[in-house]
């Protein structure tokens, strides 16, 4: 569904920018000045960003939040064996909306402990890929439609991104959101990736733009003004692209065009951006990526899109081996980066406008393989931001006993909430109407509700 209408707010922004440029921009009492301040106020109120953190490999998320009652912990320890987190190290959390047990955070999540208790983070429990709700009996009896193949990394990663497992889909739900909501006439897309090419941010009419934690590099030998001869070289490459007869040559050449144009735009915007890295305790890739996202958000008024969706990734979650130490490091790095990101956003008054959320291929087996876990299905995700109705659990906590109705086998937990519901809740906050939600999430109607409530 192509958005043909230039929205009123875009028109005001563009005309105000044009007028401001013509008038000298600093006037405050002229009609132009009023238009400028109106633009600023309106834009500040309208701006929203979603930040997706993809935990690549499948996060063993049932070790993030652990039951602490005697019986609950005993069940947990019995199934997790040598992977169980020691009870006296758990950090108590008190979900405001109640929970089936008392719980504690894995101590590695210390950086976000306060954030949860203060209401800026929610946990969404037992989410996974689904086409429709299924029970264990359904699966054992008759092969209902499942997001197949389960437990395969690249397929499950793809399903989380496309929200359309029945089809060999080429678009993802963030790309479809951009098709619906972004200004398709602008060169900078709504979707910005720090994880390279991906399905999530690919739409039918919109695509994503890739940057890194260092920003958007300029093409040294083609960018006008950087070196002598650049203009001539750029023109020649452009001409070669235009005269290409081969389909792959054209796509390659068009990528050069995009890279040139968007790098200039982004670099101009970032030139006076505040340094966000000082908010981050660690210098690792997740912290560096989120620091750049914070920087981009800080200059959003100089970027053409009204709203943005960012994708960052973090690898290493496929803890078949050495899980006890590896997972602790991963959770600590992740939660520290998220907490620091929250601080950075606060410094530019964007806490309420930005919602950050995790996704992952799958949860993992409750049972151990000796020193790690194998591929599972349902898991826990985190949502963070000022607009989040936090300090709460959403969804269901599964039964941790092997062989329960939640256990497909070896502690692979059948999800009771679908990632469609999760993503649709975020998309609704982002501004999609019910009709748009149905278009972006084709399977959403198979589930009881499209709004899990964690965005208030």
């Amino acid at each position, binding site marked *: 569904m192509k958005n043909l209408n230039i929205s009123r707010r875009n028109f005001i922004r563009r005309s105000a920018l044009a007028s401001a440029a013509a008038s000298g921009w600093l006037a405050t009492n002229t009609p132009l000045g009023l238009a400028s301040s109106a633009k600023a106020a309106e834009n500040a109120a309208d701006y929203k960003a979603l930040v997706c953190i993809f935990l690549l490999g499948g996060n063993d998320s049932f070790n993030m939040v652990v039951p602490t009652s005697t019986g609950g912990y005993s069940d947990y320890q019995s199934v997790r064996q040598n992977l169980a987190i020691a009870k006296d190290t758990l950090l108590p959390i008190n979900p405001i909306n109640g929970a089936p047990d008392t719980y504690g955070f894995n101590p590695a999540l210390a950086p976000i402990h306060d954030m949860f208790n203060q209401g800026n983070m929610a946990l969404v429990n037992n989410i996974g890929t689904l086409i429709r709700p299924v029970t264990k009996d359904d699966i054992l009896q008759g092969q209902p439609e499942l997001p197949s193949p389960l437990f395969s990394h690249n397929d499950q990663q793809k399903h989380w991104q496309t929200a359309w497992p029945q089809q060999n889909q080429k678009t993802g739900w963030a790309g479809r959101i951009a098709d619906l909501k972004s200004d398709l006439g602008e060169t900078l897309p709504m979707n910005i990736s720090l994880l*390279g090419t991906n399905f999530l941010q690919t739409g039918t009419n919109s695509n994503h733009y890739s940057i890194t934690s260092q920003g958007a590099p300029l093409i040294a030998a083609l960018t006008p003004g950087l070196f002598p001869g650049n203009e001539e070289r750029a023109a020649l490459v452009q001409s070669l692209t235009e005269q290409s007869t*081969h389909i792959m040559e054209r796509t390659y050449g068009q*990528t050069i065009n995009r890279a040139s144009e968007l790098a200039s735009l982004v670099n101009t915007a970032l030139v006076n951006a505040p340094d966000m890295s000082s908010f981050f305790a660690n210098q690792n890739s997740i912290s560096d990526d989120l620091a750049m996202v914070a920087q981009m958000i800080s200059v959003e008024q100089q970027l053409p899109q009204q709203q943005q969706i960012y994708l960052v990734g973090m690898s290493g979650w496929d803890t078949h081996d050495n899980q006890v130490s590896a997972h602790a490091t991963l959770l600590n790095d992740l939660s520290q980066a998220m907490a620091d990101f929250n601080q950075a956003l606060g410094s530019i008054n964007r806490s309420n406008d930005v919602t950050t959320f995790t996704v992952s291929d799958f949860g993992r087996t409750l*049972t151990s393989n*000796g020193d790690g876990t194998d591929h599972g299905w349902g898991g826990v995700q985190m949502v963070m931001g000022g607009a989040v109705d936090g300090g709460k659990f959403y969804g269901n906590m599964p039964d941790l006993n092997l062989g329960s109705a939640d256990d497909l086998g070896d502690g692979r937990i059948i999800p009771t909430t679908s990632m469609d519901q999760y993503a649709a809740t975020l998309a609704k906050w982002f501004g999609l109407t019910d009709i748009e939600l149905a278009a972006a999430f084709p399977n959403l109607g198979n589930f009881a509700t499209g709004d899990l409530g964690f965005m208030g």
Partner: protein
Amino acid sequence: MSNNFTDRQLVNPQTCTSTKQRSNSHWLSYALSSLTILFLISACGGGSSEDDPPPPPPPPPVSVSISPEKAARFLTQTTFGATPDSIDNLADIGYQAWLDQQFAYPATLHLPLIMEYPDDDELTQNHRQEIWWRTALTADDQLRQRVAFALSGIFVVSDQGILNETPYGLANYYDILVRNAFGNYRELLEEVTLSPMMGIYLSMLGNEKPNEALNIRPDENFAREVMQLFSIGLVELNLDGTQQLDDNGAPILTYDQNTIKEFAHIYTGWHFADNPSWYDVRVNVFESMKPFEDFHDSGEKILLNGLIVPAGGTARSDLDAALDNLFNHPNVGPFITHQLIQSLVTSNPSPSYIQRVSSVFNDNGQGERGDLEAVIKAILTDDEAINIGALQDTSFGKLKEPLLRFSQMWRAFNASAESGKYYFNNTSFFTGQAALSAHSVFHFFLPSYAPPGEISNAGLVAPEFQILDENFLTYTLNVFAYTVFTQFQGGEDTDPDSILIDVSTELTLADDPSALVEHLNLLLMAGQMSDGMKTELIASIETIPATEAHARVLNTIFLVVISPQFSVQK
């Protein structure tokens, strides 16, 4: 078991012998003997009596030589880049003789080369990459190295993660691919399976039989990925690589979770070759893992296609049964050969091409299944690969991955460094790619990737585009600019470790733009440059004064290597 394995202090020269040297039959004697036979045939036509009609003239000797353009094109498919000498050689002796020459060259192994670094060097993955570049750019056994590179995208291990501090071990792993590139797939699969590098990477090393009391079951990592990625893939295939479909038109999965579990029980009881006992860990990153029967599950397992592995087997006998079970699955031919074709020739082979090659995998003509030399030959000499008519097909071919674009440029201009080393540090940071350095076992790009837009809409795939996002493209173009404009023989901004191109030949053509362009057309683009591109390049040369020979040459080389036309192999 520690988290990180480092092999810097563990190198034992005695363990590092190269094996399987091929006999070194000289190509010249083969060629001469062929010519001799041809002369004998043509000479037999004379000496008839007057009563007999004159015998028909003998057929003209079949010339094996090919055009330089065809030679350069073939070299793009089979090596890390054409050079003037290699074009001349191949043009002269033709495809078959050249392939025989390549099959006969002894394998250049990476481990002995990395071992030449002094022990007190702080050896890192950058040193391993240096060996990789040195081999790619200078080794004689180009086809073998190119095939090993293709195999490294299928049988993936990586220095990203737990293997980060094992450059020796990874060099040795790469040599498994090099040694087996023209061998048999079954042997390749076994060496990969028992490699301690793979054992660590996919956690088969140290995998134990189940502990039922504690509900601890064997690790499934390797069991899953060896099927999904190294042998049969996820769905049942026809011989031509197309998917089999069930009655509802849906693909048929090759295995389910239960099968993975059964295989996981097979892959138990293996640990480092030097362990005196299971828990007494002595890291050995070179030798195949060793079995410990007490930690192997010897129960019955049911594998693919209902194969029952009876109870009571040893770790080794069970492993053999399992690898045979995988090897004999009909999927292996199409699954593996499709990816080799994509790496060497074209991203979108026709089903009939895949079928012809898969048939050779199934039987090389002498009853052997899995003969990779025969498979490689079939891939490269198939009409679909060789027929220059493919150039009319505007979707035939593949985007060259970044490493090949650099290697082709460097080989074309006889690149070398004063130190004899070929450092391209942090290759993957700048280009998105490096040997054995992927972020996951799924390699840098999937065989099924299609960039959105024209290519995807046409139902085609182009895997290499998966790492051609705006960021990596920009970095790659910037590294090209740096290397072409500053890293040449005679340049000022160089040091002993710099890889420098030698453009002395090209400089002699600088005052003749048309000749320079034609020269680069053959050397870099196999003669495929369009008239339009030639015109543009000549015009751009003429804007630079003839006295600035370096500027003319380097600017033109740069424009060619970043052009869409050079970037796509066809």
